[in-house]
């Protein structure tokens, strides 16, 4: 049974008067890599916790391959691997002991675990570190070990909450590589992330959440072509404000101004670029629009925390 499907209908979570999730529908077919995106407080982590049966939903239904959550959450979790946002490895144990102890929670035989652990260490790039203490590991190593721990039951659905937050680019690439390989084996991957390049790279499909609702859903490429102009010119420099005052209409289809940078979205930027050639005080970059542009257009540029 490689790959589990996930179906969520009308999911609601309220804490008193405050609604954190307000009627979410999601369909993740088996074998897909699916991203859950949204600013802080959008309801991503609460959604994941409800999906895993760790938080009681106020309303709505969740099914993982036909198992009803939370009632059958335990059966479902036998087949799920979870990589939490915060590392919660056991600091009293060595690397190998962490995997062994965790595997026992699934009721896995010690003999099977002893076979599996070297392979997991290799996957995490921790071969030779089996007897190291957790305190001796770098942040990236801990993250990789947390991923290896999530795989100890050979899961068919892997749920990752911000898997690469706080990692350096090298470590991020290692995690991405592992996730791609697992996805190629047919396992369903569900991840939340703040990194749009990560989502664009890894996810077959994704949903952008805000204020507890899905506000956009689809393939990353489709979302970009559907929801935003294809090209963007970023303009910045000291005289930006003055230059903007006397900018003729129609040169920029749509613009956003943030952090003293002008983001000019459109299809053809010929006129704008010609103007900018004659304004050496301003610097500019032209690039294709990205998922981040879509995200910021939909959720705004204001801070959320």
């Amino acid at each position, binding site marked *: 049974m490689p790959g589990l499907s996930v179906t969520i209908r009308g999911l609601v979570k309220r804490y008193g008067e405050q609604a954190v999730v307000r009627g979410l529908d999601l369909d993740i077919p088996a074998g897909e890599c699916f991203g859950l995106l949204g600013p802080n407080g959008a309801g991503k982590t609460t959604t994941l916790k409800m999906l*895993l049966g*760790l*938080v009681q939903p106020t309303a709505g239904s969740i099914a993982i391959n036909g198992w009803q959550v939370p009632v059958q959450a*335990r059966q479902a*979790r036998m087949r799920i691997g*979870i990589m939490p946002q915060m590392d*919660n490895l056991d600091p009293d144990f060595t690397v190998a002991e962490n995997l062994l*102890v965790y595997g*026992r929670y699934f*009721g896995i035989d010690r003999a099977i675990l002893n076979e599996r652990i070297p392979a997991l260490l290799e996957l995490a790039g921790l071969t030779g570190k089996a007897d190291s203490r957790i305190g001796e590991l770098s942040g990236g190593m801990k993250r990789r070990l947390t991923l290896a721990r999530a795989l100890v039951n050979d899961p068919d659905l892997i749920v990752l909450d911000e898997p690469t937050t706080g990692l350096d680019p090298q470590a991020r690439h290692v995690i991405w590589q592992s996730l791609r390989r697992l996805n190629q084996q047919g396992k369903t991957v569900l991840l939340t992330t703040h990194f749009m390049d990560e989502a664009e790279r890894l996810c077959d499909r994704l949903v952008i959440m805000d204020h507890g609702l899905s506000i956009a859903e689809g393939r990353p490429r489709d979302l970009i072509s559907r929801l935003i102009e294809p090209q963007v010119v970023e303009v910045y420099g000291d005289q930006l404000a003055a230059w903007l005052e006397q900018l003729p209409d129609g040169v920029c289809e749509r613009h956003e101004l943030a952090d003293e940078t002008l983001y000019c979205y459109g299809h053809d930027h010929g006129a704008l670029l010609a103007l900018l050639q004659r304004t050496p005080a301003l610097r500019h970059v032209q690039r294709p629009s990205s998922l981040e542009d879509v995200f910021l257009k939909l959720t705004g540029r204001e801070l959320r925390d």
Partner: protein
Amino acid sequence: MNGNFALPRFSWRFWPIWQRHFLVWKKYAGTSILGNLADPMFYMLGFGYGLGSLMPHIGGVSYLTFLSAGTLCYSTMNSATFEVLYSGFSRMHVQKTWDAILNAPVMLDDILLAELVWGASKSLLSGLAILVVIWLLGLQQSWALSLWTIPLTLLIGLTFSAMGLVMTSVSPNYEFFIYYFTLVITPMVLLCGVFYPVDRMPALLQILATGLPLTHAIDMVRPLIQGRIPAYVGVHVGVMLAWTAGSYWLAVGLTRRRLLS
């Protein structure tokens, strides 16, 4: 909220979690055993010989013998209490061990059952340590009867683990536990007959002591050390089981409310 206080569920899934605690303990076993043994032993020997030399026999035995039964009980109580309060809180809140375990196919009830039984296991160890000292000093009047204190240490451990877990379930930080020690544990040690017989106290305090679980533990352990079969065993065990069941039910409900809603 509703449903949180449904009866606790019991399952063998608690066992791998108990094994985890045991594996951690094994790494620091030396220090742990020293702590279990040294502190209560010095109290017992110091007061037993020092204070005991100034005192007549109590109920036909030396003060040291009298005190040894009290020491066994309160040392057992302390072991479970410290374990589920400080270590338990660390596992739940500080180290987030529980969060990690909950991501496996394990329920919160399994984690709490593991805490309950693990606390009692620590008590068993403390009780055994004191019992060995009692044997070495030859304070027991009957080998066979003194062996009966072993299952009792397990019962004392379960009772005080359950009571301690109630505190852990509502605690915001380590400082909070001072309330429990000041308002529950210390009065219990001073009222329940660890250092002197309960019947030497004013009637009102005696009535209060009758309701407390440590009194009933001591009422069973003390005769066993002194070579007598305790009276009213059913009542004593019943009171302790009632404290255990009530506290455990409350602790599970409060913890579910804290972590799952």
